[in-house]
């Protein structure tokens, strides 16, 4: 019961955040709604017995990625962007309504028929904790771990080379 309430709360708010992200006129409002959605996503992770992911979700998304977004929005002459009415085409609401309607329909039928694929009762102890994920990451998925480092390294170098604009200095 408690879990259901939490799920509908977090899930519903996350979806709301997502919709508002897409629907907001101003980029700053979008970003703030997206942060809201991500915070609720952290709640969803917690419900899925993935506390490590939940905390990382907040740390990485809310603490770093979205800060970067907000930073860039503000630096790019935000006031102009606020009034950018063209940024939402008139197909917007139909385009948003269609998938949501489809989802609602399928959800009703799916959940109405099946039992919702109940999870195997309580997750094993230590499931989704930092220790477990770390053990996996450094053992079975070492390649993934290395890939992550390479992706991040490339991203750092790429962002730096784009940001430094060396060729522009006279």
């Amino acid at each position, binding site marked *: 019961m408690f879990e259901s309430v939490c799920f509908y709360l977090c899930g519903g708010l996350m979806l709301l955040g997502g919709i508002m992200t897409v629907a907001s006129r101003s980029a700053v409002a979008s970003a703030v709604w*997206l942060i809201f959605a991500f915070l609720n996503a952290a709640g*969803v*992770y917690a419900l899925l017995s993935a506390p490590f992911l939940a905390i990382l979700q907040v740390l990485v998304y809310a603490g770093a*990625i979205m800060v970067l977004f907000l930073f*860039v929005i503000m630096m790019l002459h935000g006031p102009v962007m606020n009034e950018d009415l063209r940024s939402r085409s008139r197909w*917007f609401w139909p385009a948003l309504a269609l998938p949501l309607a489809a989802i609602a329909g399928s959800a009703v039928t799916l959940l109405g028929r099946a039992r919702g694929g*109940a999870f195997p009762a309580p997750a094993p102890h230590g499931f989704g904790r930092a220790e477990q994920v770390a053990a996996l990451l450094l053992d079975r998925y070492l390649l993934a771990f290395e890939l*992550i480092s390479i992706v991040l390294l490339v991203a750092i170098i790429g962002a730096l080379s784009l940001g430094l604009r060396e060729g522009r200095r006279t």
Partner: protein
Amino acid sequence: MTIGLTHYLVLATAVFLTGLSGVLVRRNSLIVLMSIELMLCAGNIVFAAFSRWLGDASGHVFVLMSFAVAAAEAAIGLAILVEIHRLRRSVNLDDLKTLTE
């Protein structure tokens, strides 16, 4: 009814499609980037949900990878956007059609 895998999948799909419609409909490239982040997030929920269903934390590793990709995407994407803004004074996708013309 207890909350199960299907619920999470439905939620993830809804979030994913919301993000997708954002990518398709919005013209402000910053918001498009944000919509992509939303889609990635929806994918992560699917990973985590199946991980829970199967009782195997391997899915979490992939979520971590996806975090890294999302962070890298944001960093590079925003760097490119800043650069475009410098050259064009706009981040509106309709203004960035030089190649098609």
